[in-house]
């Protein structure tokens, strides 16, 4: 059986080493929370609020190299954004999974809870864009490609990425495939020169601050 959109993303995150997701549940993110809870190799870690969850993911990323959190649409993601901006400033790759209203609700500009009531459903994603290095709305057709792109961007730039999961799409079967994006390598000569220069500077240093 084909994996669902959210199962696919979780399996890819697992394969790079993400085994824990910090978060606060919400009705729009039930499919994401359920998939994490039902995945035997993933651990859902309930937090008191989304800001805590994002800072917990920040700390996790400092130890493991990357972290993940899950929040609901609007109120949840906005609560987390302060720590996401912190992770951006501190060069920490975080995967922010956001459960969003169905595409039908969004297209119909319905008046829904967790929105501003003005029918604008991409506002919160736009608010997040300055503090992430990449973002995408996941659906069955794009999820394979977008997952690889976002993982590659997060790990290359060492910065947070944003993934939205409309709740109707989250549990639909993936209809595409994609290969992992190879990490860009450094030119060996330039790298050696840079390392030599750094080592020389450290050897000459008389204090912990190297100019």
């Amino acid at each position, binding site marked *: 059986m084909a994996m669902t959109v959210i199962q696919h993303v979780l399996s890819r995150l697992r394969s790079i080493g993400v085994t824990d997701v910090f978060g606060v*549940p*919400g*009705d729009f993110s*039930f499919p994401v*929370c359920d998939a994490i809870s039902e995945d035997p190799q993933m651990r*859902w870690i*309930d937090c008191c609020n989304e800001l805590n969850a994002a800072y917990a993911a920040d700390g996790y990323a400092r130890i493991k190299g990357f972290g993940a959190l899950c929040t609901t649409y609007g109120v949840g993601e906005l609560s987390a954004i302060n720590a996401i901006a912190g992770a951006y400033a501190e060069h920490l790759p975080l995967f922010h999974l956001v459960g969003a209203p169905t595409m039908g*609700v969004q*297209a119909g500009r319905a008046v829904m809870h967790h929105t501003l009531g003005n029918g604008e459903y991409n506002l919160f994603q736009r608010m997040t864009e300055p503090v992430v290095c990449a973002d995408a709305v996941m659906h069955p057709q794009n999820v394979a490609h977008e997952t690889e792109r976002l993982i590659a961007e997060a790990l290359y730039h060492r910065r947070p990425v944003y993934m939205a999961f409309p*709740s109707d799409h989250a549990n639909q079967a993936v209809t595409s495939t994609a290969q992992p994006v190879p990490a860009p390598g450094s030119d060996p000569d330039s790298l050696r020169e840079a390392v030599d220069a750094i080592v020389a500077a450290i050897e000459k240093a008389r204090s912990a601050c190297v100019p």
Partner: protein
Amino acid sequence: MIFVLNNSGYLIERLLCKNPGIAYNDIAPWRYAELPRVLGCDGWFMARVATCGELDQALQAAQSRATAAYIEVVTDAYAASPLALKLHDSLRNLYKA
């Protein structure tokens, strides 16, 4: 007099999600009744009650004191208002455009 209602989790989510008992809907069982002491509210009346009898006793005790009172009222995890139950019943139409 402050009342904190403790129903052990996110009731509205229990009423809206697929599996009401799933762990992400539970909140950590902290000792909420002792929060005033932690926050420096010295001398406050603090109590944790789980029955109407215990609530009556706590109210009586609180009234006989000149300090503020902080009472944690533990309810059933699924005790819900009529509005919340109505939301649960209309789940099918709740998220439609």
